[in-house]
C-alpha cells in the first residue's frame, strides 16, 4: 500500500520537476540566443581592490574576448586579474555542461528573476557549483555565486550597459571569501590550534570603451611569452 502511495506521489510531482528543469534550460537558452551575435569584444578595464591584505592601487588593462572561451588581459604593468567572474563570457553556461536545478522565482531590482543552481558535469578547475540569478526580463545574469571545492566562495554582481546593441558588463563586483593560504613553514604554537583565517574583500572591475565584433584573430590569444616575466607556468589566455 505504501509503495503504491509513493508511486502516486512521485507521479504527481514529476511533471512539476520536469517543468522546472525545462524552465531552467529555457533561461540559459534565452541568454545564449541573446548573445548569439557576439563573436568577440575588446574592453578597457580598471580593477579596484578592497582587500585588507591586498594593498594595491587601481590596475588598468585591456581585455580581449573571443567566443567560445578565449580571453586575454594585457597590461604594461603588473596586473592581478580575477580568474573567476572577472570577465563576461556568454558561452560559459552551456546547458549540456551542467546539471541544472531551478531554485526560485523572485523579483530582483524591480525585474522578474530566477535563481538556478548549476553543477558542472565534468570537473573543470575547482568549481563545485554556480548559483545564477537571471533577470528574465532582460535575459542577463545579474548575480553569480561561485563555490569551489577548496572552500573558496565568491559572489559576483554584474551591472550592464548598452554597447553596440549588446548588453555588456559596465561594472562587475566580486565579493571574495577565501581560505588564507599558509605556508608549510614554522608555525607559532597558537597558530596550530587556531581556526585558519579567511580572506574577505571586494574587487570592482569597471569596463569601458568596448569594441564589439571587430574580428579578433586567434593569434592574439596565442601565447607569445609567459604572462609573468621569468618563465612562469601561468598563461595569459584561457
Amino acid at each position, binding site marked *: 500500500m505504501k509503495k503504491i502511495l509513493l508511486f502516486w506521489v512521485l507521479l504527481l510531482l514529476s511533471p512539476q520537476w520536469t517543468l522546472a528543469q525545462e524552465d531552467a534550460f529555457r533561461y540559459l537558452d534565452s541568454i545564449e540566443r541573446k548573445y548569439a551575435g557576439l563573436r568577440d569584444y575588446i574592453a578597457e578595464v580598471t580593477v579596484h581592490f578592497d582587500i585588507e591584505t591586498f594593498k594595491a592601487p587601481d590596475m588598468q588593462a585591456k581585455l580581449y574576448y573571443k567566443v567560445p572561451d578565449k580571453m586575454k588581459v594585457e597590461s604594461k604593468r603588473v596586473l592581478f586579474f580575477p580568474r573567476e567572474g572577472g570577465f563576461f563570457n556568454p558561452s560559459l553556461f552551456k546547458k549540456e555542461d551542467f546539471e541544472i536545478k531551478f531554485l526560485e522565482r523572485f523579483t530582483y531590482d524591480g525585474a522578474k528573476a530566477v535563481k538556478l543552481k548549476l553543477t558542472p558535469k565534468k570537473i573543470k578547475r575547482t568549481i563545485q557549483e554556480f548559483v545564477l540569478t537571471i533577470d528574465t526580463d532582460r535575459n542577463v545574469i545579474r548575480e553569480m555565486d561561485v563555490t569551489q571545492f577548496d572552500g573558496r566562495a565568491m559572489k559576483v554582481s554584474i551591472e550592464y550597459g548598452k554597447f553596440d546593441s549588446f548588453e555588456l558588463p559596465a561594472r562587475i563586483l566580486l565579493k571574495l571569501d577565501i581560505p588564507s593560504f599558509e605556508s608549510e613553514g614554522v608555525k607559532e604554537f597558537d597558530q596550530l590550534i587556531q581556526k585558519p583565517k579567511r580572506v574577505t574583500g571586494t574587487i570592482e572591475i569597471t569596463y569601458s570603451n568596448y569594441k564589439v565584433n571587430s574580428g579578433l584573430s586567434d593569434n592574439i590569444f596565442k601565447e607569445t611569452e609567459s604572462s*609573468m616575466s*621569468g618563465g612562469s607556468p601561468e598563461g595569459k589566455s584561457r
Partner: protein
Amino acid sequence: MKLFWFEIYKTFSRWRTYISFTVIVLIVILTEVVMKLSAGEIIYRMMRPFQKDFLISGNILNAWFVTAFIMNSLHIHIPFLLTLVAGDMVSGEANSGTIRFVLIRPPSRSRIITTKYLTALFYTAGLVTFFGLVCVSLGLPLFGSGDLIVHHYGKFDIAFIPESEIPLRILLAFLAAIWSMTVVASIAFLFSTLAENSIGPIIGTMAVVIVFLIFGNLPLDFFRTLRPYLFTTYMVNLWQQFLNIPIPWQEIVRSAMILGLHNAGLFLIAFFIFRRKDIKS
C-alpha cells in the same frame, strides 16, 4: 677633520677592509644569476597563494624585487662583514702595537676615539651603500624595472608599490638599513675598545646579533615579551617599513630613535672605557 681622513686612509689601506666589498659583490652576483636562472620557480612559489584566484601578468621579478629580496638577508651577513672592520678599529691598534704610538701624538684620547668611531660609521654607510648600488646596478640590466610586489611569503598578503615610487622608497630603505647597521658597528666598536685583538670583538658581536635574532624569532610567549627589548627587532624592521603601504612613519621614527639611543649609549661606554684605559701593550 684631518684626523678623520687620516683614519679613513688607514682603514682603506688595509686589505681586510676590501674583504667585505668583495664578498658583497660575490653574494649579489651569485644570488642574482641564480634568481635569473630559476625565475619561474621563484615566481611560482611567491605567487602560489594568488594563482588560484588571479591571472597574473607583468614583470614581477624585476630589479626592485630582487633588491628587496637580497636586502632581507641584510641582517645576517652584513653584520659579520661590518665587524671585520669595526671590531678592529681599536683592538687592531693594540694588536699591532701602534696604540701607544697613536696616543703620544697631540690629539686627545677623546678625539681619537671619536674619530675612530666616526670612521667605523663611515665604513658602515659605505658598505651598505655599496651593497645597494651593486644590487640595483646589476639587477636593472638583468631583470629590468617594474612595479614592486612586496609579499609575505606563504600568505595572502601583498603590498603593490608603483614603479614611480620605488626609487625613493628604496633609497629611504637603504638609509634606514645604514642606520640599523650602525648599531652592529657600535657593538663591535665597544668590544674593540675592550679587547687586545680583533677576533674577540668580531665573534662577540656576531654572538650578540645571532643570539638576539634567535630570541626575537622564537615562537614562545617568554621570548615574545623580550622582543621590544632587543635591538635586532628594530634593526630588522626599520628598513622594511619603507616598503609598506602606507609607510608607518610613527613606527619608523620610534625604531630609529631606539637604535639611535643604542648607538649613543654604546659609543659613550666605549668613549669612557678608552679614556680610562690603561695601555699595557
